[in-house]
């Protein structure tokens, strides 16, 4: 090996430094910049992906809120439909019941009127029968009991009514 030449040291150092500098420039130009560029692109891609993810997350949140609002609205409408249906059913049941009661009242009233009419007819028929019986009995009694005096009195009343008799000419 050659001995260390001190006189050449600065030149070697200079050359090394120059080599290093050239190496730095080369690395910077051909390695560092592309790699930096690559890394920056990757960082940008990652940032874009994150932004996109955030955006999609926000969109998903919005859609979820919309869905929940729609769901709540549908449930509210369904409840309303059920309530309306129940109310309508109750009203129809009440109407049917009222009609039934009205019909029953009408039938009761008709029956009461019929009974009263039948009772009145029965009483009339009975009175008529009693009257006929009374007249029949009277007829039979009178057939036995009418005397000549009765006939004479009937004749007197008839003649007095026609103004034919004076006080002297009463029937004996």
């Amino acid at each position, binding site marked *: 090996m050659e001995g260390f030449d001190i006189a050449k040291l600065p030149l070697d150092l200079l050359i090394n430094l120059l080599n290093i500098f050239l190496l730095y420039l080369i690395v910077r130009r051909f390695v560092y910049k592309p790699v930096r560029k690559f890394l920056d692109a990757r960082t940008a891609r990652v940032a874009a992906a994150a932004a996109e993810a955030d955006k999609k997350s926000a969109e998903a949140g919005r859609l979820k809120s919309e869905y929940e609002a729609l769901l709540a609205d549908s449930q509210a409408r369904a409840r309303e439909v059920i309530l309306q249906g129940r109310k309508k059913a109750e009203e129809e049941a009440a109407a049917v019941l009222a009609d039934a009661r009205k019909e029953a009242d009408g039938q009761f009233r008709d029956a009461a009127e019929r009974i009263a009419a039948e009772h009145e007819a029965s009483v009339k028929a009975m009175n008529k029968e009693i009257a006929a019986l009374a*007249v029949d009995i009277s007829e039979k009694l009178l*057939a036995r009991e009418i005397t000549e005096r009765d006939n004479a009195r009937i*004749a007197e009343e008839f003649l007095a009514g026609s103004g034919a*008799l004076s006080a002297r000419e009463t*029937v004996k």
Partner: protein
Amino acid sequence: MRTAIITAPRGLSDATYKALCDGIERARGESFAFQRVDDDALLGGFVINIEGEVQDRSILSQLKRLRVHLSE
């Protein structure tokens, strides 16, 4: 002379019959040819028919009127 028919039960005496005939002639102021018809169904009293003009004083007709009145 017009005809007057007196319908009466047999129980009507001749005196009452004659009084009736005389009374009718006096009341009407005319003479009549009287005919007597016996009908015990009248029960009492009499019916006078002067050529369609009828006066009913029989017990039977009164009972009939009573029957109608009671059945109303």
